[in-house]
């Protein structure tokens, strides 16, 4: 008698769509680090609900960035000269300065699309495809998910899987790990062909309505990354064990990362309605077999003024422990470790974000949002192992960035 129909009010946004309707979210974001990277990102995210309950979604992301990026080489009391990745040309870094490659520029285009289809009133199946391209990087992927509601939609269990296949063909080729940066005009020792890597993600999620005003979400993700994960542009200084300045010859070695990385991520989030305002609190624990672990907290408070107007302060704090093979530099005369990278992103660090989003309804139910955020990242500027002159320099300069975003969301109803 009771016919099973999808499209009964779900607890997550999508569950409500039951007739032809399209929602489009757009945003443009500017990102700027004083003295380093400047980036612009644009995104269009659309969802079309068919009147049979299927939902098609697509996302287009464009980003362009230019600026200077840390190479991993350590500062020195001497002026340093580095060959550009292409092998043609070089740049000089003044004494005491953190070596930055200032010719960094890239443009990325990413497109993804997927379809979610109800199998019955409480079960949804989805699959999607992903592709992105940069000047020297291509990533192709596919993902699928199965979600099932229990207990009058108060409990939702999700199973997810994704696979990506990436390839990299950097300008100047992929250097043989731990070989020395050659002088200008001399070809570096290269690995043959393009670098490739695969990523497999498996996830399980649980969403639970606790009461009329509270929802919790828990998520576990296992990720297995294989093959080439070394950054072909990053290097390490080999310094004199006494002075701490780069050794006389072959002073800069290209980095070397392990080929296999297994990550585990636990993520929990609570959404709580306080009567007028809404608060979201989340925590993420990350650990991998490279020895990196991190704890990330995220808090937003949506302060509703009525009429669709709100202010949303945001606070994020992340504390990351370094990869086992992270080194600020290598020491001349010591045996080479199996793997090493001086990439500051693999180091010990604390990152703090604070921001404010304002949203308001304009026109016929369209939403306009404006967001300003400040991001600051700091690490161990004076590690205990610093030698000689390196004790005088900041080996983890603070990185800060300003983020500005304008977003616009609109519906195309039947």
């Amino acid at each position, binding site marked *: 008698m009771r016919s099973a*129909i999808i*499209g009964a*009010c779900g607890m997550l946004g999508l569950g409500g769509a*039951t007739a032809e309707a399209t929602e489009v979210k757009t945003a443009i974001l500017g990102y700027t680090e004083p003295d380093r990277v400047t980036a612009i990102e644009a995104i269009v995210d659309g969802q079309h609900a068919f009147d049979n309950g299927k939902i098609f979604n697509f996302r287009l992301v464009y980003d362009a960035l230019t600026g200077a990026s840390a190479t991993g080489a350590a500062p020195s009391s001497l002026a340093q000269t580095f060959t550009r990745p292409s092998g043609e040309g070089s740049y000089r870094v003044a004494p005491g300065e953190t070596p930055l490659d200032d010719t960094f520029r890239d443009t990325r285009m990413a497109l993804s699309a997927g379809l979610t289809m109800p199998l019955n*009133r409480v079960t949804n199946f989805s699959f999607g495809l992903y592709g992105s391209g940069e000047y020297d990087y291509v990533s192709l992927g596919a993902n699928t998910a199965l979600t099932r509601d229990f207990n009058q939609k108060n409990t939702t269990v999700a199973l997810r899987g994704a696979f990506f296949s990436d390839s990299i063909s950097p300008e100047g080729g992929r250097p043989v790990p731990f070989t020395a940066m050659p002088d200008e005009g001399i070809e570096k020792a290269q690995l043959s062909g393009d670098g490739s890597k695969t990523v497999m993600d498996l996830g399980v999620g649980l969403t639970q309505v606790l009461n009329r005003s509270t929802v919790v979400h828990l998520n576990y993700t296992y990720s297995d990354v294989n093959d080439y994960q070394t950054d072909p542009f990053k290097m390490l200084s080999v310094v004199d064990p006494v002075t701490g300045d780069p050794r006389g010859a072959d002073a800069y070695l290209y980095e070397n990362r392990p080929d296999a990385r297994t990550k585990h991520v636990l993520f929990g989030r609570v959404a709580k309605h306080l009567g007028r305002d809404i608060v979201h609190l989340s925590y993420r624990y990350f650990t991998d077999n490279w020895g990196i672990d991190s704890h990330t907290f995220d808090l937003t408070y949506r302060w509703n003024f009525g009429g669709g107007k709100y202010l949303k302060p945001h606070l994020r704090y992340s504390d990351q422990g370094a990869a086992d093979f992270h080194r600020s530099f290598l020491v001349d005369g010591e045996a080479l470790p199996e793997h090493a990278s001086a990439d500051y992103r693999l180091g010990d660090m604390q990152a703090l974000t604070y921001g404010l989003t304002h949203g308001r309804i304009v026109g016929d139910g369209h939403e306009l949002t404006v967001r300003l955020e400040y991001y600051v990242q700091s690490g161990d500027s004076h590690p205990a192992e610093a030698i000689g002159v390196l004790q005088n320099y900041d080996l983890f300069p603070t990185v800060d960035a300003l983020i500005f975003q304008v977003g616009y969301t609109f519906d195309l109803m039947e």
Partner: protein
Amino acid sequence: MNKTLLMIAMCLCLAISAWAQDAADEFELENFAGSVVLVDFWASWCVPCQYSLPWLNAMQEKYGDQGLQVVTINLDRKPAAAAKMAGNLAEGIRQFGDPEGELAARYELEGMPSSYLYDREGQLITSHVGFLKADSDKHEAEIEHALEGKQQ
């Protein structure tokens, strides 16, 4: 001056209460005996209800003469929240407000919206959870079938 304001306020109140719904405890299926009754539970915050209400309007207007009685039961806690949508309901639809969810609990609703179709004797013919526009023709056929069925 104050009187004018009072008048305006009263007019506004009247305008809002023009869609006034009957209390939940006044809802008795027997009162509609002889009609084919379509009972629909809805709320202003329920997204599919935005699509089911216009369809209910169309059904009442099309089949009211043949003996269809659409009955809506609104489940908004604050009835004012439902005013705009309820105000657009067709004439002839009987509206009830159930802010405490008493009727919803009695019907043991599985989802929103939920609808129940009764024949002229008050026997349940079918019920639906949720609303998919793609299925509205099927639901209309069920109503037609019920209307053609047993006559008074």
